[in-house]
């Protein structure tokens, strides 16, 4: 009897624990996700990189002429990005801070920036006012945005990275309709510049008025944007995006820039500021195959870019300046060329590029694993960069990405003259 009682108790306990386990298995404590007035989130990142230096490259010579010769540079970067928001009534305050510490074989550096800090007032749905530092993103392109009139340059090797904004004052007004015109949003804003504010947007005291009109018309996103004359030359443009089928999306951007200025180095080493009206545009697509490979292809015409002849002149001058330095010890010409690196040495400084990215979702049934390969071709000089990568997100809140860059190009070409010709990078990012 006692044994039967014990057996019954054991059975009951087992059953109970099984039920508890089943209940625990599918528990959902919604209380943990209640909306709070204050929210904080962010990530910490560690990114070791190793560069194989291109000792024959013009940009290597410009940056390393006064260093002992080296073939490799290792760098480790730690980054912390924290975003917070506080809401009270119709007001919300958002802020994002980003800090980085970097150390390589030659130097260490650190920087901390407030990427965003702005107040939003939303008196009713569809009406919004904003003031403060705001990272605005205009355009439909993935790797480039010719119509991104009010933003810092995007890195086409990492287009999804967050970037610092500018101080703006603006609003947004949205109305929805039944019929072919489904939505209209008007976004006017000011980007004031002075000695204290938005110095890196452009020189002088200007209000820099800008506006964007966005519509969803017959299932097509269309935006028209304008930036008035001020710290930057006046510019206007439009973009669009549309799904042609369930697995094919197309998008494009077009921009006309008045008085675009760029420094140009002459054959004799004299620099001039070339000012002209230019047109930039981009056309692209996103295509998903049956095997869940996503292709992103974009053609970019960079109106502010250098012609092949201009680039060859600059690179030839850098090589000559280096030879002169070796012969005489005089670095004046190298320094002159080095001063123009922010323009000639920026990512994709020439006129015609093709971006191709293919990523495969979870091949071989490996969940959360995404291999991809990205290629950027310079269509003017036929140099290119190839970057295969492996990404894994299987551990909650931890993103791992391993990337390898190989740059190819002949002498006096864009990718052939970069400071490094190989690079490997591991990015470990933990979200909280």
């Amino acid at each position, binding site marked *: 009897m006692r044994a039967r009682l014990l057996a019954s108790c054991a059975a009951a306990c087992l059953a109970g624990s099984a039920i508890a386990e089943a209940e625990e298995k*599918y528990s*959902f404590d*919604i209380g943990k*996700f209640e*909306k709070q007035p204050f929210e904080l*989130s962010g*990530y910490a990142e560690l990114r070791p990189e190793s560069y194989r230096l291109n000792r024959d490259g013009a940009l290597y010579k410009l940056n390393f002429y006064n260093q002992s010769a080296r073939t490799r540079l290792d760098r480790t970067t730690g980054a912390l990005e924290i*975003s917070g928001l506080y809401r009270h009534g119709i007001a*919300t305050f958002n802020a994002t801070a980003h800090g980085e510490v970097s150390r390589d074989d030659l130097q260490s550096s650190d920087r901390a920036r407030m990427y965003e800090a702005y107040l939003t007032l*939303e008196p009713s*749905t*569809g009406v*919004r006012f904003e003031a403060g530092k705001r*990272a*605005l*993103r*205009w355009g*439909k392109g*993935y790797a480039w945005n010719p119509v991104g009139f009010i933003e810092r340059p995007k890195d086409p090797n990492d*287009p*999804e990275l*967050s970037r610092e904004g500018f101080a703006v004052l603006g609003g*947004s007004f*949205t*109305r*929805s309709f039944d019929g072919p015109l*489904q*939505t209209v*949003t008007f*976004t006017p804003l000011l980007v004031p510049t002075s000695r204290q504010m938005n110095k890196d947007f452009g020189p002088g005291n200007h209000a820099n008025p800008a506006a964007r009109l*966005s519509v*969803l018309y017959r*299932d097509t*996103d269309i935006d028209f944007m304008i930036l008035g004359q001020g710290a930057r030359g006046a510019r206007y443009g439009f973009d669009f*995006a*549309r*799904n042609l*089928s*369930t*697995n*094919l*999306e197309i998008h494009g951007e077009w921009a006309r820039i008045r008085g675009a200025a760029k420094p140009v180095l002459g054959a004799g080493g004299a620099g001039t500021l070339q000012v002209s009206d230019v047109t930039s545009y981009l056309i692209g697509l*996103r*295509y*998903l195959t049956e095997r*869940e490979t*996503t292709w992103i292809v974009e053609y970019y015409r960079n109106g502010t870019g250098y012609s092949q002849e201009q680039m060859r002149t600059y690179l030839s001058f850098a090589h000559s300046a280096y030879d002169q330095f070796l012969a005489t010890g005089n670095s004046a010409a190298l320094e002159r060329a080095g001063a123009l690196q922010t323009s000639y040495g920026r990512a994709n400084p020439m006129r015609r590029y093709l971006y191709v990215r293919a990523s495969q*979702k*979870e091949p071989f*049934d490996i*969940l*959360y694993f*995404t291999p991809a390969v990205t290629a950027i071709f310079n269509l003017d000089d036929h140099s290119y960069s190839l970057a295969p990568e492996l990404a894994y*997100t*299987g551990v*909650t809140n*931890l*993103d791992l990405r391993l990337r390898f860059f190989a740059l190819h190009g002949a002498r006096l070409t864009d990718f052939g003259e970069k400071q490094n010709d190989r690079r490997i990078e591991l990015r470990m990012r933990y*979200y*909280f």
Partner: protein
Amino acid sequence: MTGTNKFAALILGLLLPLPASAIDGDELLRKVDRNLNPESYEMYRKLINIEPDGRRKEFVLYSVKKGRDKMIALFLDPPSEKGRATLRIGDNMWLYIPEVGKPIRITSLQSVVGGIFNNADIFNLDYSAEYAVEKYEQRPGGHYLELKARTGAVAYDRLKMKVDGPTLLPTEIEAYAASGLLIKTLHFKDIKDFGKGIRRPSVLETDSPLYKGYKSVLIYANIGRRDLPDEVFTLDYLPRARELR
């Protein structure tokens, strides 16, 4: 008409599917939709991917839907996904990633979260909006429906749905690709009263012959009617979808 012919016509009439049965099927499907959710609603869901070795990955989503074809789904957890939001208007779909800072139009079949869930599990509209009834049968204790996707914008080309007779709630759905391949089976479980007349399964278990040993589970909470302005379902509002809660 002879007696034999009348009898044959009667038998034929009983055997052949009548247009009326399709209408009944459509009505039934609409009732199933309304029993699952109000036409305009808000809800919370937890998505759990369970791997053969017992490892789990969990996501928490907040969703709002308006009418037949407007929906927003916002990730609340884990932190690596927090703030990601998807807007769907009919076959148009956009994804907002906080770091990117703007909504990006994606192809409607693009998966926005890894694992064995796909968009059809997360951003599904009403079944009657996405599928047409091809076959309807009354069976002991319930109903049986065969559904065909109205467009190619949904992940599953055909569904076979078993519906409980008394509650008119689905108990099991088999999802097939256009090739006829069984992609996954959805099991609706644990009927729960969510209040205000909403009584529906609170757990949806999924298994797939394509991912043997893997299981995914959706747990529903706080389902309720909610009518939002159309201006919420716009690209301009999507980055602030978290303010809807």
